[in-house]
């Protein structure tokens, strides 16, 4: 498994490579894009805050990467009329002239256009394409693409069923969750993330509070540890299983993040990869991560887990369901976190918004 690191400038390459990055990805807009297409996104992020400044810097990135693959994101969910031809030409130049190993693409129209141009084998299908089952995977394999990036909201069991042969597989490993399935969120961050202002219903209730807490964890808890590590979504304890499934690449999210955060995240992922490579279990990986990162309480409750089913034997069941089998070493011990959201069990205090109220169509 390689660690896939985000980039926005050539100055970041050396530090990320030293931290353990095996691959890089970045966003870049074709020259003249803004004049032709205004503020339409090329790569799902602001070109100014998350994109590589220009082709000259991209060339420096590829040179400094020293043979490590560099991927370019052209992964907006949709493009304006006339943009596809421009992006195909740009993509062809990136691959043929600039040393870009593959193009990360979300929109099917662009995938098909790149395929027409003979570039399908240099396409990585973005997580925004929402490939969630083996049938969808077969669809993309038949298009001839090289890799599929699985969406954030999948379980390990689903990855196991979906990751069919004939494709490379990439999964999310660290940072920056999404409230909604990214591929089925039809809004844009250009107006501010839509999820930030989402409430369950008109009247406040305790589910809203829990919903806000979940969204806060997805947003990296708005902070970092004293050792400089992000308190965001983390899938590192799942590495032993992901390795067994043949996952090729672990995505560290955050092209627009400061370099210090990127380096710390890659370093942490490298610690986990090393622990897994030594044959470590999920517990070994967790202990290695905690030793590096600190803040063991963050693992309590599995609140930050990208793949919480790695600890499925310790997760809360729905009220009224049978308690799960006791875990051998559950991370979900019922110790309250800083935010006061302890991991409950089936007997935990019920929430105020009852299922019967929901069936009646109104919150309590």
């Amino acid at each position, binding site marked *: 498994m390689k660690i896939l690191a985000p980039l926005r400038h050539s100055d970041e390459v050396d530090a990320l490579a030293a931290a353990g990055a095996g691959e890089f990805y970045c966003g870049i807009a074709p020259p003249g894009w803004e004049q032709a297409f205004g503020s339409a996104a090329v790569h799902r992020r602001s070109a100014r805050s998350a994109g590589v400044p220009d082709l000259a810097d991209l060339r420096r990135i590829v040179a400094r990467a020293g043979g490590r693959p560099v991927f370019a994101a052209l992964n907006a969910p*949709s493009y*304006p009329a006339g943009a596809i031809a421009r992006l195909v030409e740009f993509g062809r130049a990136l691959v043929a002239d600039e040393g870009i190993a593959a193009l990360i693409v979300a929109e099917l129209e662009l995938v098909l256009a790149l395929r027409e141009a003979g570039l399908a084998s240099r396409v990585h299908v973005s997580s925004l394409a929402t490939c*969630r089952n*083996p049938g969808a995977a077969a*669809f993309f394999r038949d298009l001839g693409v090289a890799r599929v990036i699985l969406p954030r909201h999948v379980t390990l069991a689903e990855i196991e069923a979906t990751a069919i042969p004939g494709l490379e597989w990439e999964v999310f490993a660290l940072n920056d969750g999404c409230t909604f399935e990214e591929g089925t969120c039809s809004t844009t961050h250009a107006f501010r993330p*839509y999820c930030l202002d989402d409430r369950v219903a008109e009247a406040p209730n305790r589910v809203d509070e829990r919903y806000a807490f979940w969204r806060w964890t997805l947003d990296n808890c708005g902070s970092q540890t004293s050792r400089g590590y992000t308190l965001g979504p983390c899938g590192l304890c799942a590495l032993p299983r992901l390795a067994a499934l043949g996952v090729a690449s672990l995505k560290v999210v955050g092209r627009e993040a400061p370099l210090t955060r990127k380096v710390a995240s890659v370093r942490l992922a490298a610690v986990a990869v090393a622990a897994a490579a030594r044959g470590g279990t999920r517990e070994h990986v967790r202990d290695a991560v905690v030793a590096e990162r600190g803040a063991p309480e963050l693992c309590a409750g599995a609140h930050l*887990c990208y793949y919480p089913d790695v600890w499925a034997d310790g997760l*809360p069941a729905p009220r009224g369901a049978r308690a799960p089998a006791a875990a051998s070493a559950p991370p979900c011990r019922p110790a309250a976190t800083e935010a006061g959201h302890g991991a409950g069990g089936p007997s935990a205090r019920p929430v105020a918004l009852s*299922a019967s109220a929901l069936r009646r169509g109104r919150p309590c």
Partner: protein
Amino acid sequence: MEYGLRLTDPTVIPPDPRAAFPAAWRTLLPAGRAVALYFGTEFCEDRLPEAAEAGALCTAARAHGLEPTLATPLVSPDGLRRIDRLLAALVARDQRPAVVFNDWGVLGLLRERYAHLPRRAGRLVNRSLRDPRGYRDAPDGGATHDASRYARVRALLRDMGVAALETDADLEGGYLGDGGDAQRPLRRALHLPYTYAASGRGCPLKAALYPDGGGFAKAFADPCPAPCRGKPLAARRPDTALPHWRAGNTLFYELPRGAAGTWLDRADRIVVHEAPAP
């Protein structure tokens, strides 16, 4: 114009399909007759019907001269198997619903095992922007309807035996084409009046079934008894005046009526949603 009906109570068919719209919409829409009865779900695999319920709806639809149309969502591997079982059961009962797919795996299933069922590309196949805040400065929308957009997708769908495209009104236009793509153009359906804004697996209504510390990401794959059945919850946002609803795992808003106008000329069918539903 033909109409597809997505009704709160699918056993009560209105004589005029426009009766299923909020009153303010009725005069805006052209006259037409209902031709299809929609059921199932486009957004949540836990809302897929059981075979008996789906069979009864197929029978009811046929009794009213309507084509039963089963909507299906993006699905997990388990969901894909569930749809396979559902379709097998319906076919075994000699039911032949049209199937709306939103997942490439479901399309593959239809092509491989249920090739005789009419297949329709659902509104999640179109990933164009629908952000309700995009209507703040342009209340009638800014869709350009350039038919060159998605021309390859439409050709691919035609080649895969798809009969029709379905979509919400989006902010860009063009997804439905102009009907002139080929000798056998795809039929075009427009969903009104509720447009989906965002959907996902971290359903807060499902989370309400769990104690503190449970639900959300820890319950993505858990089966859900669907407490969202019933009325959708009204939701209010500080950044848009458009009415919003939470229907299970999905947020919908009512499309500005002015924005629907330019889409109507490009549609052969309007799918009427009596209420927002996942």
